[in-house]
């Protein structure tokens, strides 16, 4: 598990749509796209909350940033 994603890169995407590529240990699909709702900053790393595309209103997914292998802005409607 050697994430190169920085805290700053993730925080810069709060409020925007983004695609997250996830480590297998995340126990999720390999990638997920949606709006980055917010982040929780703790001494042991960042927790990222995402509102996934196509999910029911209010649905959220939460990841520890150690499990995020890559994160990039998603094109509108992509």
């Amino acid at each position, binding site marked *: *598990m050697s994430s190169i994603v920085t805290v700053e890169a993730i925080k810069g995407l709060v409020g925007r749509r983004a695609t997250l590529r996830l480590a297998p240990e995340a126990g999720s699909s390999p990638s997920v796209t949606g709006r980055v709702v917010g982040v*929780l900053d703790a*001494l*042991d*790393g960042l*927790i990222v909350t995402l509102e996934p595309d196509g999910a029911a209103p209010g649905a959220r997914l939460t*990841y520890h940033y*150690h499990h995020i292998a890559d994160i990039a802005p998603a094109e509108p409607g992509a």
Partner: protein
Amino acid sequence: MGYANPNVLVETAWVAEHLNDPTLRIIEVSVDTTAYEQGHVPGAIGLNWKTELADQLRRDLPSTAQFETLLSRAGIRNDHTVIFYGDNNNWFAAWAYWITQYYGHASAQIMNGGRKKWVDEGRPLTTEVPSYPPTQYVAKEPNAAIRAFREDVLGNLGRPDRGLVDVRSPKEYTGELLAPENLPQEGAQRGGHIPGAANIPWGLAVREDGTFKSADELTALYIGNGITPDKEIIAYCRIGERSSHTWFVLDRLLGYPKVRNYDGSWTEWGSLVNVPIEK
């Protein structure tokens, strides 16, 4: 589905309306032990997790006598409702809550969202330290059912009716880190995790504002990772405070019947001779 024990949580708005309620004692326990002096919820007592919520000679919880002295001096009666909050998402507020439950305090709550939510909402802080009349606090017999020691963990290894949950960050679980990444890398001789432990970082139990997720979301999180209520569960982290947070979720919010906090945690297990470790 709601929380099994909704009364263990209290919202910031409610606390703000009850700052002068004589039946309450509000208590800050922050990772940053200087946070209280910089400003705290008006009327709140500050407790230091390093010097007051631990024995100062042995590595252990405060003894019954130490706990009674601490609460008596702070002006806390047995019939007070104690409300804990702190920084870093209530890590040590949960630790203090767990200790009060170990010593059988009847009514205790955690302020949902902790210090950060209080501050983010623009609620008042003060540097004035309150003075409450001393009491004669009497602790109950320690509740051994909520605390695990290393022998308990060893005895659970490989048993399908037991569940271990490692609530540290993923890189601590894999052994890349020995401690949270923003802290000195010390405290254990080896990295890794206890065999069979599921890694469910404590932070996955909260929303982006630090408040706890709904009961349905929490149930899906833990059951989806094999931490089911039919098992005896032991939670651990590095020194036992983050796992107190998860203990609170499993035992109090979800009502799992048998949950214990292994406060020796990784700083003990990762330094023991001849115990199994996985990476």
